[in-house]
């Protein structure tokens, strides 16, 4: 199942490699190799980060990397439009740099690192042992190798007219990266962008217009209020976000359209002159294909961010043991942060009997410990969605506020003590409680879905 989730990310990366191969013609081997190594470094590096830092930090790092990529294509797109209007600014050294294999390798490596980092963020990192790491390196290496060489084979078969302009290439890379990341809620860039825009609009109105916001002000007639109202609306963030989101790709498209045609005035024969022009126009149209496709990916990313597919948060149970005094102690900020408002599942075994339970901090800020089963259904367990938990067996949604209270299809609460060093649960009570509950309801003993 995990592999299926990864498919869009791997395909996005394959797209990136394809675009890079075309964007740096004649540097196939450099691009392929650096892409593969970049991807592996991204996967393994992010995995290592997850081992040593809490998730928020790692997600923060990856999100910032994506943000930087987005800002970069903003710069590139502005540069592209500036150049195409024929201003006499040419950065010769930049152009020379773009044509080196160093540059090709750098771009491929960076794109690979970010793509790999995004991909690994999709996997629930539960196995943090060195063994997992040593498995991950060959696995990601093999996947990257296979994908990159398959892409190379495809690229060799593509028609020559499918060309990638130096501006279309970074746009496509960014579009694919953002598309890849938009399906992971915590890496999503579009929603925070909309939020920032909304906040900015509100701050702007507050700080700059406060003096004028007195009713019957000379400059602000009553009809103007309707437009000012727009700035406060919920929609401003969305539309403003869309504007910022799509502008780079649109600018690159526009720049392509503005690109100047070769000088033909010196050719005397009309037919020949027109043929050169027609060929140039055709080529220019082909170069628009990549920015157009990128634009579609930007649309897809914004759509995914706006309408995220609901996935139940369902972590793998962590195995816990009891102390000699028969207590299970789970530290509040240990392996997992118990107080992050998410469902955390644990598995306890004694005498061949398993008991599954979870710890959850409710919206009221109260920790609760419950069996991963209710008093009536088969113990299929619970998953967490927005504001509720769902019983996998009967698909009933239970509001988070009521988790910890007995009755209905609610999870069976367990008494526990909250102390400084964590949550203390009596192992015997837990096992008995589970036994009593499950005996009457269970024929199958299988957790999660």
């Amino acid at each position, binding site marked *: 199942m995990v592999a299926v989730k990864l498919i869009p990310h791997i395909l996005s990366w394959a797209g990136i490699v394809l675009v890079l191969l075309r964007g740096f013609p004649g540097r196939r081997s450099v691009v392929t190799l650096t892409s593969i190594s970049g991807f592996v470094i991204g996967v393994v590096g992010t995995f290592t980060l997850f081992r040593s830092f809490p998730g928020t930090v790692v997600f923060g790092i990856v999100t910032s990397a994506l943000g930087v990529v987005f800002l970069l294509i903003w710069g590139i797109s502005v540069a592209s439009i500036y150049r195409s209007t024929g201003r006499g600014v040419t950065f010769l050294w930049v152009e020379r740099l773009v044509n080196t294999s160093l540059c090709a390798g750098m771009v491929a490596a960076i794109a690979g690192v970010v793509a790999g980092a995004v991909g690994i963020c999709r996997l629930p990192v539960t196995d943090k042992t060195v063994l997992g790491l040593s498995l991950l390196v060959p696995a990601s290496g093999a996947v990257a190798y296979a994908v990159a060489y398959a892409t190379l084979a495809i690229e060799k078969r593509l028609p020559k007219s499918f060309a990638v302009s130096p501006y279309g290439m970074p746009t496509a890379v960014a579009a694919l990266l953002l598309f890849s990341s938009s399906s992971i809620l915590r890496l999503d860039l579009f929603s925070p962008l909309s939020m920032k825009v909304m906040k900015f609009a509100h701050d702007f109105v507050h700080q700059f217009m406060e003096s004028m916001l007195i009713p019957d002000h000379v400059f602000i007639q009553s009809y103007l209020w309707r437009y000012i109202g727009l700035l406060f609306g919920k929609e401003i963030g969305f539309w403003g976000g869309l504007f910022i989101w799509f502008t780079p790709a649109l600018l690159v498209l526009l720049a392509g359209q503005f690109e100047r045609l070769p000088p033909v005035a010196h050719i005397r*024969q*009309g*037919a*020949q*002159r*027109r*043929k050169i*022009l*027609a060929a140039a*126009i055709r080529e220019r149209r082909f170069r628009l294909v990549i920015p157009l496709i990128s634009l579609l990916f930007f649309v897809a990313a914004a759509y995914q961010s706006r309408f995220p597919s609901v996935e139940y948060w369902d972590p793998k149970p962590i195995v816990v043991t009891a102390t000699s005094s028969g207590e299970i102690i789970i530290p509040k900020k240990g392996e997992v942060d118990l107080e992050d408002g998410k469902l955390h599942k644990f598995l306890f075994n004694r005498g061949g009997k398993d008991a599954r339970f979870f710890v959850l901090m409710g919206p009221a800020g109260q920790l609760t410990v419950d069996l991963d089963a209710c008093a009536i259904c088969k113990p299929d367990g619970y998953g967490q969605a927005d504001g509720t938990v769902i019983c996998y067996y009967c698909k009933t949604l239970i509001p988070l506020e009521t988790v910890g209270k007995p009755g209905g299809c609610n999870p069976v609460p367990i008494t526990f003590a909250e102390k400084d060093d964590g949550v203390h649960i009596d192992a015997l009570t837990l096992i008995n409680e589970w036994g009593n509950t499950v005996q009457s309801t269970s024929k199958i003993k299988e957790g999660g879905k």
Partner: protein
Amino acid sequence: MVESIIETNGLTRSYGDICALKPLDLQVPEGEWLSVMGHSGSGKSTLMNLVGGLDRPTAGSLRVGGEDLLALSEDGLARFRREFVGIIFQQHHMVPYLTAVENVMLAQYFHSVPDEAEARSALERVGLGHRLKNRPGELSGGEQQRVCIARAIINSPKLLLGDEPTGNLDHKSTVMVMELLKELRAEERFTVIMVTHNQDVAAWGDRTIYLDDGVLVREERMKS
């Protein structure tokens, strides 16, 4: 030795049982003005259509300008027509809703990109500078034919084909059109193949071939 622009070998075209063109071997050297004469149904128009890439032979080989026309696809033939050939028909075929200059631009558009200034000067060259914005209905027969000439040469073809271009014109217009063609040929150096049944018109060429019932019966070289 001038290279042949057209080379046919056993070129045949039949429609069902009727053989419009019996196996024909023909060489046309580059730059020649060839007149093709014969009665109606003698196969002269068939020959011209085959050479112009408007029709496909049923047998034999046909090379025009080094290109094997039998090997070309339908779109390949279209490309061959727009880049290599200019055609003038007997009935002055213009697109009825387009003006004279737009009719010329149409050929430019199919060829590459339209260029109005160039189309205008082409029309001025055939003496129609004052009728640029007129539609076919407002032009006389001779004027229409001159528009067709301007359109035929606008893409600098190597080969100009005329299928009785003066067939519907009076004597005065005929002379005018032929003079124009001669002038243009002197400048642009294209090869001309002109189908006609008029001895006087044929006499404008370097060489005349006579077809009868799809067979080449006689060949005559002009001395000018």
